[in-house]
């Protein structure tokens, strides 16, 4: 680890922080600029003007938007997330349990899909043009081209309706044994794995193929290196950066997928919470959920970039 790497990593971290600021700013203003007065919406039509004015005062709604943004941001940093409009509960209470549930779903999916998809992506790239490669490519393009809810409803049709192996809806509070737990997670995890794996396979395949077409791989081939040696010793170490990048980008599809999958399977996660919040226009809750998702995504991307920097042999 030399100073050059440290400098680049530091620069990347600064960019991540700036991006998070811009993003939370955008989220705040998208929701703060909406037409209609929040105070009068909350109090309903029969509210007196005095009551509305009082609530506006109490919620600091008359302050400049910039000041409200700063207050909101500081509150976020200190763990004070404000209260939900809909049921007046502190948002931190609403979010925390759901957050764990979503992380479980995402974590299990990542654990299954990453090794599975990396294997398929790398092998299909190495066997480029073979029947195996073409089947993998066609299936991944098919999965990428259709909406997530279609993958999910196909899974329900096959496994719950026709085969009757699994329940169509998962309910966390009815778990009595490991078997129940497996059955509950099976469908959401399977669907998500499918969606995310397709992205990882496609991007990994592209990254490895690009590395395999570089001059030094050709040189290794001309020297008579074996196929496995070319792939494992020459191509893969250099493709590590792009592959990690592809992984991080694909995991952003995990976020999109989680929103749909939690809704279709009634999974009590943070994405379901957010969709419900959008339906009731519960703005503080929407802002919090959105920032949590964006922060998660940014952290993934930043880690990927840092790994790419560290794994670049030219910087060692």
């Amino acid at each position, binding site marked *: 680890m030399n100073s050059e790497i440290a400098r680049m990593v530091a620069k990347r971290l600064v960019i991540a922080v700036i991006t998070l600021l*811009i993003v939370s700013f955008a989220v705040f203003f998208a929701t703060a600029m909406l037409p209609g007065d929040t105070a009068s919406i909350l109090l309903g039509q029969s509210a007196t003007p005095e009551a509305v004015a009082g609530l506006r005062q109490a919620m600091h709604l008359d302050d400049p938007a910039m000041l409200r943004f700063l207050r909101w941001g500081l509150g976020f940093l200190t763990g004070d997330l404000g209260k939900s409009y809909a049921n007046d509960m502190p948002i931190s209470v609403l979010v925390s349990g759901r957050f764990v549930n979503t992380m479980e779903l995402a974590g299990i999916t990542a654990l299954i899909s990453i090794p599975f998809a990396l294997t398929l992506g790398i092998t299909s790239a190495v066997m480029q043009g073979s029947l195996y490669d073409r089947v993998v490519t066609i299936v991944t393009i098919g999965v*990428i081209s259709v909406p997530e809810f279609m993958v999910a409803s196909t899974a329900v049709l096959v496994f719950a309706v026709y085969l009757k192996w699994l329940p169509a809806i998962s309910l966390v509070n009815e778990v009595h044994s490991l078997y129940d737990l497996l059955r509950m997670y099976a469908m959401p995890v399977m669907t998500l794995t499918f969606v995310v794996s397709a992205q990882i396979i496609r991007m990994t395949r592209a990254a490895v193929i690009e590395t395999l077409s570089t001059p030094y791989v050709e040189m290794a081939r001309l020297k008579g290196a074996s196929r496995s040696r070319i792939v494992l010793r020459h191509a893969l170490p250099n493709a590590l950066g792009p592959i990690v990048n592809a992984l991080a980008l694909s995991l952003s599809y995990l976020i*999109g997928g989680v929103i749909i999958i939690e809704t279709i399977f009634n999974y009590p996660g943070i994405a379901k919470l957010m969709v419900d919040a959008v339906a009731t226009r519960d703005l503080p809750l929407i802002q919090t959920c959105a920032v949590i998702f964006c922060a998660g995504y940014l952290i993934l991307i930043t880690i990927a970039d840092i790994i790419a920097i560290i794994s670049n042999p030219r910087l060692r």
Partner: protein
Amino acid sequence: MMQGAPSISAATGFFGYRFNLVGVLAFLVILFWTVVALFAPHIAPYPVGKIVDMDYFGPMSSKLWLGSDYLGRDVLSRIIYGARYTLGIALAGVLIASSCGVIFGMAAAVIGGWFDAALSRFMDAMISIPSKLFGLVIVAAVGSSLPALILTLAFIYTPGSYRFARALAVNVNTMDFITVARVRGENTLYLAVSEILPNIIRPVLADFGIRFVFIVLLLSGLSFLGLGVQPPLADWGALVHENIQGLSFGAAAVIAPSLAIASLTISVNLLIDNLPRKIRDRSA
């Protein structure tokens, strides 16, 4: 990565290429849905809101080709009308997104300097918001009327289009003929429209198609969540949403709209994949 700008030789015409079989088939499917969307009132066997079946989730029959939905309405007619909303909204959205992206992208490449740096930084930040999440936030703020939906979709996909167009334009911008034009004293507008645009238009059109697919998928996703097109109107995603209870007994009312979306998006993807290399090649 960067491989020069392969589409510089713009002498040959857009239609002077040979298309392969898959490309032609994909094109026909897209043409089919376009015709269906345009002539929906003449094709649909029943009025879109009319309850024609006493049963709900009725089976497929010679009278109701795709059965009936959760209220006993004809599914086929609703899909035919749904094509208008899915195709129309997505097309309007992608037109706005691509135009804005290309205009800003070329401006950034030609003007350069702090303008380019600030705009690119901002667009990169926008890209780092996952699209479905972004959609939820904006829909929560501005609601889901049709114009609001179109603008939301356009807004979400402008940054991607910007990045693509800017990368192409930056490549072209380093060419000698641009330098010559600059020396001639041409202004920024002329440089962008007459020198750069003709050289990036074909990859931009391919990108237009890919972005169209993204927008169809996002629109369907939002409608599926019940936050996109609102009743009584219904696009294909909304059709799946309103009939989702029928999933547990495999009703065509759920499956058919999904298949319609899939046929459209897969066809557009296949068409772009099978475009002659010269059109599709991108330098970024």
